[in-house]
């Protein structure tokens, strides 16, 4: 993955939902290896911003581009280069933990079985690999979601309250995954209320300017 010159550029982004303007005039640039934390009160549009970046919502104005990616049309490819970790865990209760992860790895871009085993070990779900996901607790399901970020390599991580439902050791592990990802030249945009353990991330305050 060649990411040295990559930049995630957000240009005067605005979003409307149901006729109401959620945010407007959001500008930022994130370079490879950088993390940005989006903060703000409830309803300030943190989740909406992440969904716009992920291509799950349409921007009313402005655009998000990922530049510098070798051999790909920039704007269209951003959702394909991004992992979105939302509030929902996209785990099917009747499939086993391994089946769930294998499917997403195959669907989002094949990585092969070793990647899946290492990802499951990294989030300490390897002992539960053959258990249907219905038996998992909220925190375990969240860890299964995080395993997806590890099993499929994508440069941009869009994390919406990534630490929710996680206990302290799991949060620490998530922090180390994020550091590794940044060290490998990845991007992180995280919406959060509290600290997520990264040292000196850039901060974008939503709703502060009105």
């Amino acid at each position, binding site marked *: 993955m060649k990411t040295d010159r990559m930049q995630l550029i957000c240009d005067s982004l605005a979003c409307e939902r149901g006729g109401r303007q959620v945010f407007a005039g959001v500008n930022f640039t994130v370079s490879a290896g950088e993390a940005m934390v989006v903060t703000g009160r409830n309803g300030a549009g943190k989740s909406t911003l992440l969904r716009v970046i992920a291509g799950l919502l349409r921007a009313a104005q402005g655009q998000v581009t990922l530049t510098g990616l070798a051999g790909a049309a920039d704007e269209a490819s951003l959702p394909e280069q991004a992992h979105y970790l939302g509030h929902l865990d996209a785990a099917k*209760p*009747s499939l086993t933990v391994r089946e769930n992860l294998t499917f997403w790895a195959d669907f989002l871009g094949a990585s092969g079985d070793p990647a899946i085993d290492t990802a499951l070990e990294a989030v*300490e779900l390897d*002992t539960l690999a053959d*258990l*249907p996901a*219905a*038996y*998992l*607790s909220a925190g375990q399901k969240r860890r299964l979601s995080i395993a997806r970020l590890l099993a499929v390599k994508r440069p941009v991580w869009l994390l919406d309250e990534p630490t929710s439902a996680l206990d302290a050791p799991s949060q620490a592990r998530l922090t180390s995954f994020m550091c590794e990802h940044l060290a490998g030249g990845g991007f992180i945009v995280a919406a959060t209320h509290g600290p997520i353990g990264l040292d000196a991330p850039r901060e974008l305050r939503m709703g502060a300017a009105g």
Partner: protein
Amino acid sequence: MALIDLANPTRFLALASRVLPWLAAVTAIVFAYGLYRVAYAPDDYQQGATVKIMFLHVPSAWLAMMGWGLMTVAALGTLVWRHPLADVAVKAAAPIGAAFTFICLVTGSLWGRPMWGTYWVWDARLTSVLVLFLLYLGMLALYWTADDPNRAARAAAILALVGAVNIPIIKFSVDWWNTLHQPASVVRMDGPAIDPTILVPLLVMALAFTLLFFTLHIAAMRNEILRRRVRSMRMMQAANA
């Protein structure tokens, strides 16, 4: 039935392991004897050799009804006495009852074709069995779609009781419906009083089928108990991980 005494699933498992081989052996012996008697049973003077289908058809019809009866009693066990094995009994009986109802319908239409000239008539008797089959399928569908066995247990018990109340009503209404629109082409099968040379093989086959039902039912109950054990152990596994 011994189900009432066996409140403890572990004791049931132990007993099932001890009883099942013997029960299976007895079933096989009675079946062999029954089939031998069937092979040498005389032909019916009206229906010829096709009367041999009756030795499958009548016992499976009897089991189709007994299956639902067993589910009804077990359903009372679930709802009234909260017996831990009652729901296991209902769930294990459903596919077996459905299979025997299916055998009854298939053999019936294979018997009907040479006798009546058609595989299926909307005759009151056939139609009631068809409705019973649909009820069994509904019961199976209920168990397929529910992932929580405890919630499925109550719903299935209620369905079993409602079915038990409804089957006589359905039978009655179908009889009445059929007399209004009696199709002319159907030959009624009011055979002569049954001769002992046919009655004895029929009774032996009925006994064999009943034994088979209970063998399968106990084995299926054992599977279901193990399945629930797996479920609770998996929950412990997830909680401890």
